[in-house]
């Protein structure tokens, strides 16, 4: 049996669900409509009968039974007439246009509780026979049997007067409604099949394609991408988003590879030097002074290694979120003053003019230590690169408002960074080829970037002519205190 397998597909389940929901709604709607129209028709019929009865009652009051009989006979003969019947107290029919009637109808005065069967004069013989045959037993049955609604009135002299109307119209309506209902169900069935076909064959095929592609990518082909049809629908959007995610993963992966390479370089090189020095010191017959020198060099080398490890550790802790409770209102202008003051003698020594540019007054929630360290990293870098290049090496530190943001900007007029490398320099361990010989862990800007991201900000590098401008951007929505 294949049904369970078919029902496993989303399309089949969706179609079945839609079918059931549609059918329920349609049934409720149709039932409501038909009962409403039947009720309306019935109430119209009752109004007509009521008016007729009123008229006959008037005739009876005016001229007694003979007038009533005459009026009834006249009205009975009119085309499309209602049902009229006058019977004696025992229920024997005296006059009117009804030949026979379902037993018991005349015995209860007032509105008939439910439609009853009757025969009119002039109906076919076969029908008459059928009615007669059934007559004694119970409810008469036959093709031409009519149903009617009637009002029964007992006149003061015991005679029975009945005015009724054939229910042909409401009955016909019910038939139409039933027919429509059936048709609707049939169309819904076809619709459900179409939905199943469309969703199943078309849309779900694309989901299959996506899952197939993702299986391939999981298999290790990170360059693979999910199919996009270009229709811009939900599936395309899903695929596009997943593709962006894949691109990001691929980029991170790429970065990881590069970092491993750089770690190999930046950590292995000093470790090798360390080992070589120890080996060289042990070789031959060195004097005590040589041992001393070798050990001092080893200590210096390990200090540098420790510094690098500390920076890596700090970056990963910052990236892991760190503890945000370590922020407090911090005066950024004061940090600028501190750092510039700290580096000013060093800058002077290497012939770089370290200056403070425009400084806006700004206090925001931050970690003073981290921001101070980040800024000093940037200033340290700027001095290093500006030194010895150009006619008048200069580094300018400013704190400016740009839009709603606060920007700590350090600009130098050194050799700058080639535009194609601007994005890369803040990555871990990236040191551009020609600066590999410079001292430092290569982590300064990465650390600064991590500090900025920890504060919800970002680090932006832009080329100057000449030189490099590093912007530590604190977004405008970070909490400010006492702005002036």
């Amino acid at each position, binding site marked *: 049996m294949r049904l369970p397998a078919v029902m496993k597909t989303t399309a089949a389940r969706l179609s079945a669900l839609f079918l059931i929901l549609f059918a329920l709604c349609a049934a409720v709607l149709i039932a409501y409509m038909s009962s409403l129209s039947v009720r309306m028709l019935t109430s119209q019929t009752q109004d007509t009968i009521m008016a007729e009865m009123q008229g006959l009652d008037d005739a009876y009051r005016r001229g007694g039974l003979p007038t009533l009989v005459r009026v009834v006979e006249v009205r009975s003969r009119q085309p499309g007439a209602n049902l009229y019947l006058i019977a004696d107290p025992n229920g024997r029919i005296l006059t009117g246009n009804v030949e026979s009637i379902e037993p018991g109808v005349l015995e209860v005065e007032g509105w008939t509780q439910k439609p009853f069967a009757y025969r009119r004069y002039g109906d076919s013989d076969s029908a008459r026979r059928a009615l007669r045959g059934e007559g004694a037993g119970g409810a008469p049955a036959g093709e031409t049997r009519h149903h009617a609604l009637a009002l029964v009135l007992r006149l003061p002299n015991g005679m029975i007067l009945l005015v009724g109307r054939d229910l042909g119209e409401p009955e016909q309506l019910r038939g139409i409604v039933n027919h429509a209902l059936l048709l609707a169900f049939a169309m819904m069935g076809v619709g459900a099949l179409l939905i199943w076909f469309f969703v199943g064959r078309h849309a779900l095929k694309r989901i299959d394609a996506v899952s197939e592609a993702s299986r391939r990518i999981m298999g290790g082909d990170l360059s693979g991408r999910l199919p996009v049809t270009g229709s811009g629908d939900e599936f395309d959007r899903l695929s596009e988003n997943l593709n962006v995610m894949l691109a990001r993963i691929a980029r991170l992966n790429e970065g990881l590879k590069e970092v491993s390479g750089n770690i190999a370089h930046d950590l292995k090189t000093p470790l090798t030097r360390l080992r070589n020095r120890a080996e060289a010191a042990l070789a031959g017959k060195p004097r005590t002074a040589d041992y001393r020198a070798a050990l001092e060099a080893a200590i210096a080398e390990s200090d540098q290694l420790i510094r690098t490890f500390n920076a890596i550790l700090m970056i990963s802790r910052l990236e892991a979120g760190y503890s945000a409770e370590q922020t407090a209102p911090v005066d950024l202008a004061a940090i600028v003053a501190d750092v510039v003051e*700290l580096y000013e003698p060093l800058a002077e020594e290497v012939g770089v003019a370290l200056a403070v540019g425009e400084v806006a007054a700004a206090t925001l929630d931050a970690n003073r230590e981290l921001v101070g360290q980040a800024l000093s990293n940037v200033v340290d870098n700027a001095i290093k690169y500006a030194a010895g290049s150009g006619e008048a090496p200069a580094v300018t530190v400013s704190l400016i408002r740009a839009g709603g943001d606060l920007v700590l900007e350090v600009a130098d007029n050194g050799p700058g960074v080639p535009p194609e490398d601007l994005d890369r320099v803040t990555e871990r361990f990236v040191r551009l080829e020609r600066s590999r010989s410079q001292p430092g862990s290569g982590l300064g800007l990465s650390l600064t970037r991590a500090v900025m991201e920890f504060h919800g900000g970002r680090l932006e590098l832009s080329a100057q002519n000449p030189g490099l401008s590093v912007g530590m951007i604190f977004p405008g929505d970070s909490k400010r205190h006492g702005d002036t």
Partner: protein
Amino acid sequence: MKILVIEDDREAAEYLKKALAEAGHTAHVAFDGEEGFALAAQGDYDILVVDRMLPRRDGLSVIAELRARGVGTPVLILSALGEVDDRVTGLRAGGDDYLTKPYAFSELLARIEVLDRRTGGKEVETHYRVGDLELDRLSHTVKRAGQEIPLQPREFRLLEYLMRHAGQVVTRTMLLENVWDYHFDPQTNVIDVHVSRLRGKIEKGFGAPVLHTVRGAGYMLKAG
């Protein structure tokens, strides 16, 4: 100076003990938190050197309970952690100073000696004198051989710290922490340049040097 080292790494602890002994101090070693607490509570130590992560009992809880019992012995916390918040929690628990592993022994020694002097009753004074060099905190003046030397505010604070700890080794990180109030490791020799600038002002034209460089450790202000 009698020092208690609470450190679970036996090799590191023995090394510290030996190195402290060579520097002229008596060191005892405890290898876990409970033992360390018991020894420290009996308490005739001048300094406690406490590792943060200890077996049986965490270093911070040892310090906190010692403080709760009124033991005021200065504590230097050693830690492999070392971010700003770690230092803050360490100092909040009752530590007096914080040093991140791996550390240079000279740094540890310098900090221990400064801590000891502090409890030895040497309060912040208003007037310091080292040889013919004088610093007055109230009038904010510095004189050498009676001649006034004009200093920048930061140079004044730098000299003040050096004079307060005259005769003791003061490391670069101690200067950055105490004079600039930043706790990171400066990448380049920024502190050295500040010190040599100060040295130029207080030594140039005046006889004997007073501000000495201690190789591999830091600086020391000493007369003669």
